[in-house]
């Protein structure tokens, strides 16, 4: 088996008295798409956010692309370039155009000239099907378009792995498809992806592995067919039953 590109071991996270992650191990190999499901408050988002250290784990280790993310000597800002992240609420910069959103880190972090950054930025926007929206501000874009700009902002930095934190949860149902389509294309291009989402149809078609989390721990994991059709655990069964009823 190939060496994992994301390797998290024994992750714990406390928020005061709250024990949100209780010893999570997660290892993801290159080109793998790992899907994380679980009830709200189960620690899915916290797990993702520990991987790029938006959240400081209380204990454990995180190695991404050979870089020890928790080592104080690690240049965290440099390391974060390799880990793209997409958020539930898009978090586009409202005072900048789509192109400005995509090029900011290219210029300030990757050190590209304005011209080079704009070329890469336009290419990234083209990949998410928004080449013609480069000059629009987030306020002039639909939710689905905003999320695709957010994906372009992340992939423009050519990350080794992409984290998706409920990328379609804030979208109107008719806009979800366009975002999933972009994610599917990204997957086909060989991107390693870790996705927290409730889009079970997408998980079934695209995921290599599905993890079910509950109470800060991974309850079970396996290929999507196994998890969805024959969950081993009672909690997994009841959770999948609940979301499929809707």
């Amino acid at each position, binding site marked *: 088996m190939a060496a994992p590109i994301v390797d998290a071991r024994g992750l714990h996270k406390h928020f005061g008295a709250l024990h949100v992650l209780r010893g999570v191990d997660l290892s993801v190999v290159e080109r793998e798409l790992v899907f994380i499901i679980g009830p709200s408050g189960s620690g899915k988002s916290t797990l993702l956010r520990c991987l790029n250290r938006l959240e400081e784990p209380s204990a454990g280790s995180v190695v991404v692309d050979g870089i020890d993310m928790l080592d104080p000597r690690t240049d965290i*800002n440099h390391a974060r370039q390799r880990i793209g992240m997409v958020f539930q609420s898009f978090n*586009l910069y*409202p005072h900048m155009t789509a192109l400005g959103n995509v090029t*900011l880190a290219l210029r300030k*972090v990757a050190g590209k000239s304005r011209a080079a950054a704009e070329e890469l930025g336009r290419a990234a926007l083209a990949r998410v099907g928004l080449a013609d929206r480069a000059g629009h501000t987030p*306020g*002039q874009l639909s939710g689905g378009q905003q999320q695709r700009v*957010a994906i372009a902002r992340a992939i423009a930095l050519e990350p080794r792995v992409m984290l998706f934190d409920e990328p379609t949860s804030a979208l109107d149902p008719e806009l979800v498809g366009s975002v999933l389509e972009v994610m599917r294309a990204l997957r086909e291009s060989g991107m390693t992806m870790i996705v927290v989402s409730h889009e079970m149809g997408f998980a079934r078609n695209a995921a290599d592995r599905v993890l079910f989390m509950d109470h800060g721990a991974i309850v079970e994991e396996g290929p999507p067919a196994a998890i969805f059709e024959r969950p081993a655990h009672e909690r997994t069964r009841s959770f999948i039953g609940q979301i499929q009823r809707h």
Partner: protein
Amino acid sequence: MSRWDRFVETFLNGTVMWKYLPDILSGVVVTIELAVLVVITGLTAGLVLALLRSLAIRPINAVIVLIVDCFRSLPPLVVIVLIYFGLPSAGISPSGFVSTWLSLALVLMSFSEEIFWAGITSVARGQWEAARSTGLTFGQTLLHVVLPQALRLTIPPLTNRTIAITKGTALGTVVAVTEILGQASSAMSNSYNPSPLMMGAAAYLVLFFPVVVVGRWIETRFAWKR
């Protein structure tokens, strides 16, 4: 003599006004100098304090909050009097002009720090997270992502505060600054006629009306669709 003539004679007396016009104009110059100094130094200091506060270093923030709250509670006049009459006993004797400038700048610094700080904290946490997740440093995020949004939010309260405090230049009369009101009131007592005061009022209108208009223009110019 009709009532109207008597009114004009008293409040809009041409001879008196013509005689004291140069004094009022020199007062206008002093007021402008004072106002520009107060606005530039006060807002700059306020922004610096707000940025310092965003570093979240507890002891520093405690000091900032203490200073800012003091100057926000004290009437500006008290600050002017304290500096003008109090500092000499510490061996420093600032002129009336410097005392007024320093006092109003400190007061504007304090109010604007609070406004800038409110602006910075009102920018959604997701903005910080998105920017940091792409590898931007704390400083870059503050400069390129948070401040531009924060400043837009702060423009309306900031223009109001700035105008209110800048009008406080009139308090300089108390410590013998020859700004508009000082010139107008000494002209009034020399001429036994309140017409110079009317000129002073007109001068304030001419000075501050454009500021209000520009403030409103900036508000609409920099508003963006969310």
